[in-house]
């Protein structure tokens, strides 16, 4: 049969020579290779003690942001939920009452805000859609769990720690964000 292209390379298999049929040289060669690997650099890391650095564009768990005074940024506009291709986000908006100015930055806020982490594909479209800088993707990932229900993260799990009441937690959560923006 004529070949379709002239790039065809015909391989001819020679019968094994005597040295090849002995197999021992090939075995010794293979053993030399495995032996040399003893001294090579280990490809693995000791995980819990040692962690691989994330790439600068890594997108992990969502965090609901607060401003410097600890007020929630989210206005429950629903743009993130619309943008979400996996339909992982649900929310319920509520109007801010008179004495709640220290809690919420704008007149409307999210009374309920849930992200289903099993549906979420961590694409980051919610972060891009948000006009208020109220949601961003951090550098952690969802820890494993036994129930499906526990993967639906509610507002208390998503909110960043309060910058005044829990300064340390806020700073710790904030660091990765600041570094990410720098890059």
């Amino acid at each position, binding site marked *: 049969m004529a070949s379709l292209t002239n790039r065809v390379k015909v391989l001819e298999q020679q019968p094994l020579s005597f040295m090849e049929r002995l197999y021992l040289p090939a*075995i010794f060669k*293979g*053993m030399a*290779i*495995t*032996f040399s*690997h*003893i001294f*090579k*650099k*280990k*490809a*693995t890391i*000791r995980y819990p003690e040692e962690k691989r650095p994330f790439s600068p564009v890594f997108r992990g768990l969502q965090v609901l942001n607060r401003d410097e005074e600890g007020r929630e940024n989210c206005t429950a506009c629903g743009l993130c939920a619309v943008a979400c291709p996996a339909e992982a986000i649900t929310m319920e908006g509520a109007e801010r009452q008179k004495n709640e100015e220290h809690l919420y930055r704008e007149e409307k806020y999210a009374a309920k805000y849930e992200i289903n982490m099993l549906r979420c594909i961590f694409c980051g479209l919610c972060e891009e859609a948000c006009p208020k800088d109220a949601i961003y993707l951090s550098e952690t990932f969802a820890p494993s769990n036994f129930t499906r229900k526990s993967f639906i993260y509610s507002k208390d799990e998503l909110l960043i720690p309060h910058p005044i009441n829990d300064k340390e937690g806020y700073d710790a959560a904030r660091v990765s964000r600041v570094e990410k923006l720098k890059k």
Partner: protein
Amino acid sequence: MEMLQVDMMLILEKLLLIGGIITFSLVIAMYTTYAERKVAAVMQDRVGPNRAGPFGLLQPLADGLKLFFKEEIIPLTSNKLLFVMGPALSMVTAMLTSAVIPWGSSIHIFGREVSLQIADVNIGILYVFGVVSLGVYGIMIGGWSSNNKFSLIAAVRGASQIISYELAMGLSLIALLMMTGSLSMKTIVEQQMSGGWGGFLGWNVLYQPLGFLIFLICVFAECNRTPFDLPEAENELNFGYHQEYSSMKLGFYLFAEYVNMFISSAVVSTLFFGGYDIPFVNEATLALSWGDNIVAMLGFVSLFSKIAFFLFLFMWVRWTIPRFRYDQLMDLGWKKLIPLALANMIITAIVILWFNK
């Protein structure tokens, strides 16, 4: 029948020795499992077990505990008695061989000369053969009584493999025995020790390289180690003959494999590598200045380092060479090793006759 009328001290001494050697083999086998995982890891650019204890040294203990606490399942349709007997037989035959291996020369304690060999029988090598040939029953009985087709196939494979390679093993040893003229392991070691360069030139491997190679290949096959681990080929037979086993019964099977490896390494070192001979050192002159006991201990260390090398070789080969196909295995055994061993035997006989003329 004077043989049976012995003093109590001898019985006590032998019992202590038996206990010591059994404990020793078990501990070594335990740590061989650990070494196997470490060797596999470093050869694959990994780290290996390092969680339990420093450097993961407690890993074998953790594994043993895990096996002990696992639920014990005996299949409903299995033959219960034989199902339980299988792993026990495997373990017993694995341990039995150590009786005739000389672990060192004699030491002197409390004015008694204590030989570091349980039984110096004049048919030592044949005894090893006998026990090895019985080792197949553990596999066969376990595989058959599980009442599972995979186990049965594995058992049949294992049995035919072991019988086939026993022939080549025996033939390769006959050449060695023609040289030594004795079947006693102790005599063979002593003959090797009397060679030049402090015993090194007496090592049988220098005179029987082909015999050694054949013997080594057969030992790999008898221990069911890769590349001959067809009875437990996990991708075709799920897990082979111990598929239905769980808990410590499975542990016994896995453990017996490592004990077998240890004992086979000891046999190979004894027959071909001078046993407890320390190369380039004349033990007799050393004993005059340092005393018998220290030299005996050094000899034991020498034997042990040889064993450790062979154990490493077992693992090294396992993580290098893929498994044989079944017809290749039979081809190698019957069509290559047996004719080679026969040729080796005839050449050795001619050479011996030539020199004796």
